[in-house]
């Protein structure tokens, strides 16, 4: 009897481990297989599709990059940002001015646009983030408007007409000017953004953000500097937006203040919130919804924002964590 007892005691954990390993293994294989297929599909996609679909897909990748940046601020750090288009504009105009007025090479303008975004992010974030977190919502909203008005009123930004003649980037001697070039460029950018987001999420800073988001006071009591951590999230997220803005300027070769309206900030926010804040697949899903729904249902045109408004309200009331929410890493039932 004693022997059998021992055996069962030994057997159970062993079985459990096998099961766990097997499930993990299976999931990973499945997951990697799925990713590999998806990547192969997306890589050969431009060869099999029209310019119009390529344009939409490029737009989708672009949204993924921008929204992952916004997700760092909204999803990871839990701060409502309503002027993200402004940071996007900072990047686009930095590249635009340096490229079209000074003839600087595109790739060299990217560090400048990051620096500009960091300065803007610090200027907005530093005074505001020391205060109640939700002040940031209105201040960013106002910053978005100020930036647009400033761009409109200044001469160096080309006023209401905007900037034209931004140089196309060169990549190992090839000038990127086809839509398929930009498709691949934004595809690579989206993958980089996903990897960076993933690394950030699991970093020490990422865990600090999560803690602050869940319980600010407890996080502060544990020795996390709440203001500094939030400032990091704000500045990193803003630089993401600026880089995306630089690439946007290079793709469009002409930019005007109309590309950076409040409504664009709202669409970015919508993509982050719809899919599920703070989770990379959720943000990707949200981007797909926000980019594809208006394309598929062109008829809803004028009603689009009204419908989005209702959608946002319903999601907040019934699924406040988004369609595909983050699983809590630590279960509270234990």
């Amino acid at each position, binding site marked *: 009897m004693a022997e059998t007892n021992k055996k069962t005691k030994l057997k159970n954990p062993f079985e459990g481990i096998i099961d766990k390993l097997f499930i993990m293994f299976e999931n990973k294989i499945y997951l990697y297989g799925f990713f590999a297929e998806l990547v192969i599909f997306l890589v050969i996609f431009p060869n099999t599709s029209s310019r119009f679909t390529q344009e939409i897909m490029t737009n989708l990748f672009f949204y993924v990059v921008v929204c992952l940046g916004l997700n760092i601020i909204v999803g990871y750090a*839990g701060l*409502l940002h309503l002027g993200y288009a402004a940071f996007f504009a900072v990047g686009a105009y930095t590249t635009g001015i340096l490229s079209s007025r000074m003839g600087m090479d595109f790739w060299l303008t990217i560090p400048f646009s990051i620096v500009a975004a960091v300065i803007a992010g610090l200027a*907005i974030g530093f005074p505001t983030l020391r205060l109640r977190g939700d002040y940031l919502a209105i201040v960013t909203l106002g910053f978005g408007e*100020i930036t647009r008005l400033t761009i409109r009123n200044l001469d160096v930004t080309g006023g209401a007409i905007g900037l034209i003649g931004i140089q196309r980037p060169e990549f190992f001697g090839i000038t990127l000017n086809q839509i398929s070039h930009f498709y691949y460029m934004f595809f690579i950018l989206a993958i980089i953004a996903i990897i960076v987001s993933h690394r950030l999420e699991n970093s020490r800073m990422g865990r600090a953000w999560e803690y602050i988001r869940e319980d600010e006071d407890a996080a502060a009591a544990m020795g996390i500097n709440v203001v500094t951590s939030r400032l990091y999230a704000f500045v990193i997220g803003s630089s993401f937006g600026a880089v995306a803005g630089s690439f946007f300027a290079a793709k469009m070769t002409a930019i005007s203040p109309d590309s950076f309206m409040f409504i664009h900030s709202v669409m970015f926010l919508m993509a982050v919130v719809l899919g599920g804040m703070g989770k990379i697949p959720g943000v990707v899903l949200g981007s797909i919804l926000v980019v594809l729904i208006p394309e598929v249902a062109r008829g809803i045109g004028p*009603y689009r*924002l009204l419908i989005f408004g209702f959608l*946002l309200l319903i999601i*907040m009331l019934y699924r406040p964590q988004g369609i595909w929410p983050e699983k809590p890493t630590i279960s509270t039932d234990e």
Partner: protein
Amino acid sequence: MALHEILLQQLFNGLLIGSFYGLVAIGYSMVYGIIKLLNFAHGDIYMIGAFSGLIFLSIASPYIGAGWPSLILGMLITMLLVGLLGVLIQRVAYRPMLKAPRLSILITALAVSMILYNTVMLLSAGRYRAFNVDVSSESFFLGPLRLTETRVVLIVAAFALMFIMHMFITKTMYGKAMRAISLDRDTCQLMGIDVFKIIALTFFVGSALAAAAGIMAGVYYGTIHFFMGFLIGLKAFTAAVIGGIGIIPGAMLGGLLLGLLEAFGTQIPFIGTEWKDVFSFAFLILFLIFKPNGLLGRSESERM
């Protein structure tokens, strides 16, 4: 005009615009004080007020004209209706979210704002609408000041509303309950205050004041637009922060101060009217750096 005449004129203009800001800021500040929500939809309530007033005038003007009596009647009815709209919004969108995370309720408020202005945009076909009223626009001089009857009535009405509001908050039982809830909601509930009723009342009063400001702005500017609430929402928040958010007299003071700042700020050389909004917002950011609790606010430590 001599310099002091320009300044006097700008003082009057600033006070007039500032009183609109103040009226909207009161609602902003009250709601923040009582449920700690930045009500993004508040600017849109102001816009809805202006449009409701216009609809009332277009219905009523064949019978009673579009002069002051029908304007006053229209204002009262609009205040009532828009106040009820505010209560409805509170009931549907905000009340279920009171226990939810802060970010969720902020996004809900944003959604409500989008619904309101997109509805009006679709109904008004996105065009500017003329706010036709049949009141005297003749100007007369009071010393060096050039005034019109409309402006005098508007500024008097705005200040009267602010005074009534102040009396309501400081002298009545309901005002006392509001102030108590903004201090400690749970204890109020234990003391037998019907908290949800007072929150609904707050929304009613705040929305009614915003609607009144909307109609007055319609009369003052002559045209209204579905997006008119966006900027004034920002300005009202700025005003509320300048005065100390959650403090009603602070909101009025902040509104007047912001109006004056804009009026005088645009007189500074090199800062034209196209920089007006940039100017007031830069001021907000400076204010947040140096005096985040506002003029009348006390520094408070958040209790857990």
